[in-house]
């Protein structure tokens, strides 16, 4: 999920693990590139799900 904020945007991504369901929240300012942040967040989610 992507949310517009006053100074940029936030990306919220769920992570399903056997021991806990988590949420990754990334806040970015106007200089960030949405696609890059979304890609890295998805990558982070995969790493955390498999950890």
């Amino acid at each position: 999920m992507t949310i517009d904020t006053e100074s940029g945007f936030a990306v919220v991504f769920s992570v399903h693990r056997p021991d806990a369901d988590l949420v990754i929240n990334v806040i970015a300012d106007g200089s960030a590139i949405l696609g890059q942040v979304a890609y890295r967040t998805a990558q982070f989610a995969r790493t955390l799900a498999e950890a």
Partner: protein
Amino acid sequence: MGLDFGQFTLDNGDRIRLFGTPGQSRFDFLWKILSKNALGMIILADNSRPDPLGDLRAQYLEGFADDLDIMPCAIGIGRLADHRAGRRYINELARHWRAAVLEVDVRKRDDVILLIDTLLAQLKPACLENKPMSVKINLAPSAKVIATREAEKMLSEVDGVTAVVIATLDGFDVASAMRHGDPARVAAMASSISAISSVVSQEAAWAATKA
């Protein structure tokens, strides 16, 4: 109008999170989301409305009836000075519900603190009986280490990222990397937004089926 959030820390170190929800009935789907796992509730009523007692009874107290069976409540009545209703509130509420009723002016800090104190005073015995004040998070220690490391990596490598917070579904932060701010607040707000999005998705799916 919208979702409000605030947080303060008690003298013993416990953190209290306050969520404010709009009172209009079209936002009642939010009430159920926010009251889930809540420790207590404060309801603010506007005495200048045409039927303030009716609003309180029909909209809020019946809307939250299930929740009020299991959690303490404090009711703040505003604008009593201009539109005296006397003991009508107290008498009516005492007949049906157990809740502390106070006259408040929400623009005055002392009145708001008194309202919160009134709720907290009811809260402590209830918490001791039913709900632990601390939350146990079952995340594997190795996962927490990885989460912290990856959060710091993302903060340093991705241009424009100012905060990375990993949280549980009910809004408790487990790892974070931030340039500034409070990870607990980010975690709490994000869990509320996720819950609202889930309801919107469900409503949209229902609407599509109906169509």
